[in-house]
Structure formats: structure tokens, C-alpha cells
């Protein structure tokens, strides 16, 4: 996973609430077995017309937003299914940060795990940032995770909250599996205790599967 420290780039305004994961990446594109290559299908139903050509009205088909690294949206971004293809598609397109008033829980989690920073800011601030973003290539937004601020093109700094552990992992590009594996003694201990208290949870389903038939 790539570390996230500070990002300065083009932001694309997407003034929509409840952007669900089916919108971000429709189910028909989930059939990949790799994590990359989904960027071209990002927002496919909005981005392409039925004949497959680009819909010029959609923001990511316009300059300079084709090169957007930040996406600004309205409430409840990422609701719907648990598909991690949603952050993969965003990432593969080049988006490293999504700013919205709030996020659906699973998407929020999945973003961090893939090196995308979800930033919660009030609806008013999001609207203001969208206005900035509409100034196009002249309006670069800076997202500084180290200092926990979003810097508007006019230099105004807007602070945001973030979970300290998540921030640490993201700043250092750390994989949390490796971290957890260092706790294997605790996990062994938990299993031994649970096995004594609830022995029926152990042995299934493999052994039973064999003896049952």
C-alpha cells in the first residue's frame, strides 16, 4: 500500500448524495481477479453512454477533471455493497482522496485499507470546495494528512478529524495484517480459552464433514 502524506491536485466536484458502490463500479465489472485495471470502469453508468461512447456531461470526462486526484461529493458516499472494487476503481483512476459530509461505514473502512483518504467535512465546506473545484486547473486543492488540513486554493486551511491509528497506518503505508500477525500469541491464548469454554466451536466443519458422509 502506498503511503499518503500530502496531496496537491485537481479536485472533481460530484454534487450527489448517496453515491452507492453500484454507481462507483457496477456489478458487471466485478469479475476481475486482480486489483488493478478497474479505473476505466469507474462510474461506468454515468461516464459512458449506451453505445459505449463518453458522456461529455460527466465531470470525469471533462478537462482537467480527467486528472482528478480528489473527489468531492455529498452525503453518505459509498453506500451499498461491501465491494472493495469501489476503492480499487477510484485508486486505479487516480483518486487518492474523497471529501464528503459523511461516508458509509464499509466504504470508509475499505478506503483506508487501500490507501485512499476519506475526509469528512460539513456540507457547507464541501459545497465551498466544489465551488473552488469548478475553477478547474487553476484551483488545486491540498490535502495534508500530516497536519490534518485541507488547503483551499486561496490558502485557507480547513482542519479535519481522523482516527489516529488510521492516520498512522496511512502516513506510513503500513499493512495491518503484518501488524496483527505480531499478536499471534494473544490470538493463540484467546483460542485456547474459547476452546475450553465452547468446545463445539472447534473441530467443525472440516472433521465433521469427513465423518458425516
Amino acid at each position: 500500500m502506498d503511503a499518503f502524506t500530502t496531496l496537491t491536485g485537481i479536485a472533481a466536484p460530484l454534487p450527489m448524495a448517496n453515491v452507492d458502490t453500484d454507481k462507483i463500479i457496477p456489478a458487471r465489472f466485478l469479475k476481475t481477479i486482480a486489483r488493478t485495471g478497474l479505473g476505466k470502469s469507474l462510474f461506468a453508468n454515468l461516464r459512458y453512454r449506451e453505445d459505449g461512447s463518453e458522456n461529455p456531461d460527466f465531470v470525469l470526462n471533462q478537462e482537467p477533471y480527467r486528472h482528478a486526484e480528489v473527489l468531492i461529493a455529498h452525503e453518505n458516499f459509498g453506500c451499498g455493497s461491501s465491494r472493495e472494487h469501489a476503492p480499487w476503481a477510484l485508486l486505479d483512476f487516480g483518486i487518492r482522496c474523497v471529501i464528503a459530509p459523511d461516508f458509509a461505514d464499509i466504504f470508509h473502512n475499505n478506503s483506508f485499507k487501500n490507501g485512499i483518504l476519506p475526509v469528512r467535512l460539513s456540507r457547507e465546506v464541501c459545497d465551498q470546495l466544489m465551488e473552488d473545484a469548478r475553477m478547474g486547473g487553476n484551483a488545486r486543492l491540498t490535502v495534508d494528512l500530516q497536519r490534518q488540513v485541507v488547503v483551499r486554493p486561496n490558502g485557507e486551511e480547513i482542519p479535519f478529524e481522523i482516527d489516529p491509528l488510521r492516520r498512522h497506518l496511512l502516513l506510513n503505508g503500513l499493512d495491518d495484517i503484518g501488524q496483527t500477525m505480531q499478536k499471534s500469541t494473544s490470538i493463540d491464548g484467546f483460542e485456547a480459552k474459547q476452546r475450553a469454554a465452547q468446545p463445539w466451536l472447534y473441530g467443525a466443519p472440516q472433521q465433521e464433514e469427513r465423518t458425516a458422509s
Partner: protein
Amino acid sequence: MSATKPRTLYDKIFDAHLVETLPDGTALLYIDRHLVHEVTSPQAFEGLRMANRPVRRLEGTVAVVDHNIATDASRYTGIDDPESRVQVETLEKNVAEFNVPYIPLTDARQGIVHIIGPEQGLSLPGMTIVCGDSHTSTHGALGALAFGIGTSEVEHVLATQTLLQKRARNMRVTVEGELPAGCTAKDIVLAIIGKIGTAGGNGHVIEFAGSTIRALDMAGRFSICNMSIEAGARAGMIAPDETTFAYVKGRPHAPKGEYFDRAVEWWKTLPTDEGAVFDKEVFLDAAEIVPMVSWGTSPEDVLPITAAVPDPEAAADEARRAQLRRMVEYMGLQPGQKLTDLKVDVVFIGSCTNSRIEDMRAAAAIARGRQVAEGVRAMVVPGSGLVKLQAEQEGLDAVFKEAGFEWREAGCSMCLGMNPDKLKPGQRCASTSNRNFEGRQGPGGRTHLCSPAMAAAAAITGHLTDVREIAQGKH
């Protein structure tokens, strides 16, 4: 936390699975059961392989294919769609390589992961259960903590049998009173989502409580917890009781004999303590529930079947007006149009929300002795091979076939546009599934969510129909 402080069902299961609390308060939570399917697992196994890590606890893991497969006989001769085939083959390769227990397509027990977990007794009260699928919330109906995870987390659980979790907030939805005739668990949950919205449960785990919920059979409880995610909550739960224990008893992987009795002893300690505090409470009077149907493209856009399509211009703010206009347009509706005037092209009875034997019976009761309306394609897709077998033993397949319904093999089918069962652009479908997002059942498809009985009624009349009228013999 002191042992005497009243705790919720969620708190108790969470505490019982706490391996360690990290300095910043994040919990390392032990996972008892991990269900794996073909869509969200390939990249997780790929990650293990790359890091040279084994699956930590094989006996806690079970894999099955459900999303990509066809639900007709063609599934046994191979999958046509090359990408679907690769996903299924990849899962088979991965389970063989990592030695993960697997229920193959040819096994009678195969089915939708959220149907077969409970059916096989793989999902039990008091457990932590995860799966790379948001409708894992279904299993919470057993009094378990069950939630969907992303692929990175699938990899994390495969490697460590644990997850890093923040404690969620507690929310309780209480439904009291007797459910009116013609209404089902599906109508309850649609009414709840209509009331609290798709973000209503964000950050919370919902416990469903009250006399109406307690009176439901397990099938109904599964339908309700299934759609917790549509209410924004990662998990939904219902306290285990005698209905739960009777359901679990005798299932293939359920504890047996003395172990069962010991398990029940523990399960009985799980229900929320008197005086436990919920961060959010919602109350619903069952008497106010009517058969519900969704009209828009978000599960919160539901209405009683007796209502009419709302007028977008009547909404309070411009953002909402724009959203509603888009919905009305996408769904091909006119403001003010009666919902019962909407003609359907397709009827889909199935999905992890409503494909249990009880759902099959409810739909068959409407279909019996009637005929599917001309021009309507009506399909019934049981949730598992075993549900299918049982329905056939009860003669329900004959009822459906005589009425003109297709009787199909188990799988996710038309719940999502990922296998051959898809809507065509512009087609309108009465569906017992859980999501009505744009394109969910196929690009351009129009979904109306409802109960199995309501879907069957729509198949018979050819338009969205108040099932109570069928019961009164009006059709």
C-alpha cells in the same frame, strides 16, 4: 468495563471476542466463522500467496460459489461468460491450494452463502461471523454478530482469524403489536428503512426487538437482519430465544447432545440486559404497517402499495428534488401515477432476503391455481439446493410450474447483474431482493422491492398489486 453494567446483545458478543484492545481503542476481534465466495476472495488469496501466508484456521472457514453461476441446467456444463468462469475456477483453485473446506456447485447443499450458513448450522448464536459481502448482516438473526467485510479484511481474517474493529454504537428498533394480514417481515424492514433512511443506521449495529419481531419465525428474522445494511447498519441482530434454539437444533454443524445444552445455556445469557443504554432508539407500531413496495432507486424510497408516485417538485430542497426527478425518469414513472397501475415485465422471487422455504410457501400460496399474466416472465429461485429439494417434496415446484413460473436452481440469480439472469434495459421487475439501485438487476433495469407474496401477486395480475386483494379473491 465492570461486569455489572447492563450491556446490549452486541456489547456481549463483542466483549466475548475481544482478543486485545490496541492503545488507541481499536479492538482486535476474534472471528469464529468466515464464509468465502468467489467475488470478493480472489485478491485476498492473491495477497496471502504474495506474502507467503497460510490460512490460519481452516475449520473456521467455508467457501461456496453463488454470485456468478447460472440458475438453469447450463451451470453444470460450464460457465459461458469467460470472466465469471475465471472467478469460479479461481476460487476452486484457491480452496484446493489453501485446503479450505468448500461446498461445490454440484453439492445439494450449495446455495447463496447467507442461506447456507444458517441452514448448515455453520452460523450459530453468539458467534462473530464475517463474509466479503454486505448482506452478511443476515446471520445476525440468530443472535450473532455478523457483518460484511471488504477484500483486504477477507485477507486479514484468512491470515489471522481476527479483524481490527472500532466498537459500533448501539441502536434499537422496536416493533410492537400484531402484524396486519398480508404483511410480512419484508414489509416490516422496508417500512423501517423508509422511516430511518439508508443512512439511518450508519455507525450503528441495530438490534431489532419488540413483540412483532419475537413473533416472527427465523425466515422472517433473517429477512429483516438481511436488510440492516440497506438501513446503513453493518450488522443487525435479534436476541436468541426458543425460536432460535429450535431452528439451530439438529443442523449438521450445530453442537450436539450435551454440547448443545451447554451452548443454549450460554446463548441464554446473550440478550440485552434490562437497563442497557442504546445510542439511538426507533419505535414502530406494527398495526401501521401495510404491504410495501419501493418506487425509486434507493431502498428508502418505499411506499405502501396503496400510494402513488410522489411528485419530485414537492420535495423540500433542490438537491432532493433533483434526486427524485432522476429517479422518476430512470424508473419510467409519472408523478401521481398509482403504484398498482405499474405493469411489470419480470417477477423475481429469490435472493438472500427471500429465498427460504417459508418464502417459497408464501409465494406458492398466491400462485396456487392461478396463472402468470401474459407477457410476464416470472422466476422462482430457491436459496439453496436443500430449499429446492424441500420445496419439491412439498410439491411447490409443481404449483409454480402449473401457474407458469420458472422453477430454477439455487444462486444469487437476478438479485444482481452478474450472471445470466439479468433485466434488459427498461424492463420493470417486482423483486424480492434487497437493492433497487440503478442497474442493479442489469443495466437500465427497473426494480420494485417487495415481499414474496406481493411479487407473486404482481406475476398473476401483471402489475404491482396489493396482495390483500388477491387474498380477498379480487383477482
